[in-house]
């Protein structure tokens, strides 16, 4: 599986945006037909997969811009005298229930529900309005006509449906739609709220780890997600490297977890930075709901829901950075929040790294690969070459890149995997790369 992806990945499309438009989140919808990205400028760009074409071999699966809209605007918190960034922290699609698509987008404080719908017809021939919509002078109306729908060019309309505001004191880091399709949760640094999708003026606090005295604060919530099948279960991760599985049937306020997943610290690897690098930056349920994938600074871990004592598998993402932690602490890179993703069959995991590298790990064969998302090295439809980073002092092969020459400003924090196919979306600063398994596309064409 990994081999297919690594050696035969096709660079499918590259979309370049302006320099300031750093992509801050990437998310496929449930069919994989649409792909949404959010950026630091508060915009959401939706890409749609083009229908298959018989003339062009590779056109199948190509994603093109479908719609762009401004989701959030910068605001100002007058109480704290602080700016509220418009940056989109997370996007989540709602399961599709009619012709329209719905998505939730959030910045640090406010969550919005958007409706994305298509329009290809327009009503014409109103009696009281002219073509521009102006009210006609009644005296000029001498005859009545029946308005008709005329076909027009396809228009994609995006409209705000709900605004869920004023429920978060801290920064919202996660939103997750429940499998009941009616509720969703939003997590900030210290609290998790449960919302009904139709009700904006009320939410229920389901987790609150804020200590009575903020001086006692030593731990924050870093990510949270609902179980994909059981609407009563959700998991949240913390800055101390723990995962807590909560069952909403037990109590209204899930301050007490049902399960605590935590790996005992290896005393030999203990350092000043142990806690920081163990902070979980992302947690994702597998599609099956059996496993949890977490990412911390140096590793990706797969946990079995039935084993709390230690992770099932631990994958080193960039262990060569272990000796550089102090530098990474000083330049703040150590606080970078890398996300992680499962493939459709839960057999491969993917996560980002520095230097525009991203990593894939095959859970069955235990093979791993490092790939690079960059305009220089990957032309459209070119096959990606595996990259290798050699640790300082190690033997260096041709094309290897040394740890010291890694570019820490080019980081791949946000990745997404198509829910069923081997198509991945990689956000590298302000570029979005969509790679596709070549075998896969040949099979389909």
């Amino acid at each position: 599986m990994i081999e297919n992806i690594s050696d035969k990945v096709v660079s499918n499309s590259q979309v370049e945006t302006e320099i300031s438009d750093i992509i801050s989140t990437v998310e496929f919808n449930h069919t994989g037909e649409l792909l949404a990205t959010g950026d630091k400028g508060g915009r959401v760009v939706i890409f749609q997969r083009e229908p298959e074409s018989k003339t062009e071999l590779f056109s199948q699966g190509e994603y093109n811009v479908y719609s762009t809209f401004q989701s959030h605007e910068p605001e100002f918190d007058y109480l704290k005298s602080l700016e509220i960034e418009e940056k989109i922290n997370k996007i989540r699609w709602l399961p599709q229930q009619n012709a329209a698509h719905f998505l939730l987008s959030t910045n640090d404080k406010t969550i919005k529900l958007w409706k994305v719908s298509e329009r290809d017809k327009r009503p014409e021939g109103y009696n009281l309005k002219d073509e521009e919509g102006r009210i006609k002078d009644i005296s000029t109306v001498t005859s009545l006509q029946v308005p008709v729908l005329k076909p027009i060019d396809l228009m994609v309309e995006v409209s705000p449906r709900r605004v869920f505001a004023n429920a978060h004191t801290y920064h919202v880091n996660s939103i997750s739609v429940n499998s009941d399709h009616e509720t969703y949760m939003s997590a900030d640094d210290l609290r998790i709220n449960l919302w009904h999708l139709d009700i904006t003026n009320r939410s229920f606090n389901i987790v609150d780890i804020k200590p009575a005295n903020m001086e006692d604060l030593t731990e924050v919530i870093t990510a949270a997600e609902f179980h994909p099948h059981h609407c009563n279960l959700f998991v949240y991760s913390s800055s101390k490297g723990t995962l807590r599985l909560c069952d909403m049937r037990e109590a209204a306020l899930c301050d007490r977890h049902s399960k605590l997943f935590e790996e005992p610290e290896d005393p030999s690897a203990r350092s000043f930075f142990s806690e920081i690098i163990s902070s979980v930056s992302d947690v994702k349920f597998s599609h099956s709901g059996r496993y949890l994938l977490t990412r911390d600074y140096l590793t990706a871990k797969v946990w079995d829901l039935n084993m709390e004592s230690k992770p099932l598998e631990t994958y080193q993402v960039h262990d060569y950075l272990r000796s550089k932690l102090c530098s990474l602490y000083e330049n703040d890179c150590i606080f970078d929040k890398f996300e992680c993703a499962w493939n459709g069959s839960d057999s491969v995991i993917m996560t980002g790294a520095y230097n525009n590298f991203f990593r894939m790990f095959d859970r069955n064969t235990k093979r791993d690969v490092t790939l690079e998302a960059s305009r220089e090295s990957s032309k459209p439809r070119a096959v990606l070459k595996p990259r290798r980073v050699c640790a300082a002092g190690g033997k260096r092969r041709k094309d290897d890149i040394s740890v010291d020459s890694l570019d820490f400003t080019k980081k791949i924090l946000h990745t997404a995997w198509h829910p069923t196919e081997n198509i991945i979306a990689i956000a590298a600063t302000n570029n979005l790369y969509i790679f596709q398994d070549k075998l896969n596309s040949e099979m389909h064409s």
Partner: protein
Amino acid sequence: MFSKGAKRKLDEDEEVLEGKTLEASAAGGGFGLGHEGLSKVSYTLQRQTIFNISLMKLYSQRPLNEPSLERRVLINNMLRRIQDELKQEGSLRPLLLPPSPPPDDPMDEGFREAPPTFGVLSAAVTAQVSPPSALLMPMIIPPPSPHPSVPPACPPPLDVCLTPASLLEDDSADSSFCTSSPPTPPLSPPPLQSQTSAAISPPPASSSDVSDMALRPSTAINRTAAANSMTVTTSLTPTTLTHASHLTASSPASLGPAKDCRTSGSKTEAACVSLAEGCCAELRPMDALPAVAPVAPLDLYPSHSPHSTPSGFLTDLALDDVLFADIDTSMYDFDPCVTAGVVSVSAGTSLTKMSPVVTADDLLKSLTAPYSSPTPQVSANQPFKIDLTELDHIMEVLVGS
């Protein structure tokens, strides 16, 4: 006194040193090693370095938007952890800490947006400043804690360091403490502090000197941070230097030697470095000789500021008071107010102004290279490499009176 030849020799020593530490760091494998792989002192130095970086991180940046809580909590935990360690090592402290204290201070200064006017503050001014800080007092007062590093012979300052408000009163009342009045402004929240200092500062000459000294190191640090390379020791040196000068300045008899230090420091960067090392190491003898007269005030003055400064920010950030309440004062040995004393003492000699600047910049150059190596523990061995004559000299300066 250093002759030119001696300076050059130090220069070479420095290069050799850097080379050695480079090798050591390449072999050592970095901070992650923990206690075993490293000598106790280099571990302490690392810890101090991380402590400094953490402090700087917590207080230097004031972005327009709300900073990440996660980041703040993690940095705070780091500081707490280091502090717990320090507490546990309480008995060993005199042995372990002296090499490290000075590095702390440039950060201390660096995160002060506007350095208050120092030695020049009149008692009246202090009185003006004190109301706001007195208001803050209830939040600031740290739980009383024993300060092992404060010589038992001097109880009043001990009180002073526990209650910032009384510190203010003491300062304004006691004219002999005049130089120590500056630490009061930091008590008030930073914006206020900058206002007051801007409003107050009457004699521009000395105050600008101080602000120069206070600001340069921090800019240097920022620059290096952006360059992605470790330049932790850069921060060490300017302070150590000033520290050296405040040591000497505190005892007027040793003013001459102090100037000497300055001169040599300002002339060659490497000399600066080694001088700084010298200061680091020389603190040990100092601790060993608590009876020596000049030493006592040195320990006292700093003991105010560490509390006032961090707690001032703490109230601002609503962070952990306790974190800083118990803090080991020896880490804050260098104090702006004492520096100010130096400035006022040697005012007119451009040396004072020059030397820290030169050091910061030059050190940056000289130390960037080693820090691009995986392990930034470059200065680990340095305290041991002091020229004996230099040590003698410093002792002379110390005990000179």
